[in-house]
């Protein structure tokens, strides 16, 4: 990808990233992160990983970020009143630590020998067929395990988030949405 495009996308990502951690209103943070993720998706596509790029935007931004937004609205989380309250020492050290981390990473990257191309790029690099081909051959077990993981996550999320009410002898499952209460009223 042309370098000017990369620089633009990189700058956009960094600024949005800073926006994620610095915004006071959590909704703004979520939106900033969504922008970063879209940016990432474009970068993926630019690197030839078209499928993954699309998946990133559909799944990550479309599902996970929306989920975050729902949770924020559900819990009615307000903006933080003041951005800087105490713990200045920890904040300072945290910033310093992050900077040190960047420095170390750069030191490592700049001094390691560059990765070498072991395979020539196939024509269908990044296509869904080649992705699926690998998924169902070399990474089959991980694929299946991931499906179980998702099942566990679903069950876990429901079990954690339900509201348990004990009526005489019977446990009734109630979701925490307000729909059921209006239904009850009606």
């Amino acid at each position, binding site marked *: 990808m*042309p*370098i000017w495009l*990369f620089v633009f996308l990189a700058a956009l990502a*960094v600024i949005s*990233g*800073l926006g*994620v*951690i610095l915004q006071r209103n*959590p909704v703004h943070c*979520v939106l900033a*992160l969504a922008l*970063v993720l879209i940016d*990432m998706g474009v*970068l*993926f596509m630019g*690197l030839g*990983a078209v499928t*993954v790029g699309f998946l*990133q935007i559909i*799944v*990550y931004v479309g*599902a*996970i970020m929306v*989920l*975050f937004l729902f*949770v924020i609205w559900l*819990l009615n*989380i307000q903006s*933080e009143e003041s951005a800087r309250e105490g713990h200045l020492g920890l*904040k300072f050290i*945290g*910033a310093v*630590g*992050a900077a040190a*981390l*960047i420095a170390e*990473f*750069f030191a490592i*990257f700049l001094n390691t020998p560059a*990765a070498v*191309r072991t*395979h020539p*790029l196939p024509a269908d*690099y990044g296509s869904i067929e*080649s*992705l699926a081909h*690998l*998924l169902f051959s070399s990474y089959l077990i*991980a694929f299946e395990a*991931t499906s179980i*993981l*998702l099942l*566990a*996550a679903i069950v*876990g*999320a*429901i079990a*954690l*988030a339900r509201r348990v009410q004990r009526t005489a002898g019977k446990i009734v499952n109630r979701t*925490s949405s307000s729909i059921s209460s209006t239904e009850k009223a009606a």
Partner: protein
Amino acid sequence: MTPVSYYMGLSAVLFAIGVAGVMLRRNIIVMFLSIELMLNAVNLAFIALGRRVGTMDGQVIVFFTMTVAAAEAAVGLALIIASFRNRETVNADELTTLRW
């Protein structure tokens, strides 16, 4: 063509920003978002290196990472909801009952 190291550099910077977010923010939701940011930075590194080496393994790994991140986000948010019901707060400083 941009060299791979540029992508690595961007990945490192985003990762560090995520770390700083975990350290600096009080709000648990925002800490969670920072963690997602870190995950994505690593995904970028994987894709870039996979492209450089020439295989699809990088993308497969990113595929799995995304899946796991989704599952983790669901469960994590469920946890936050559950704890919010008891404590009415998402401030990390006030969620310290497991202290000495």
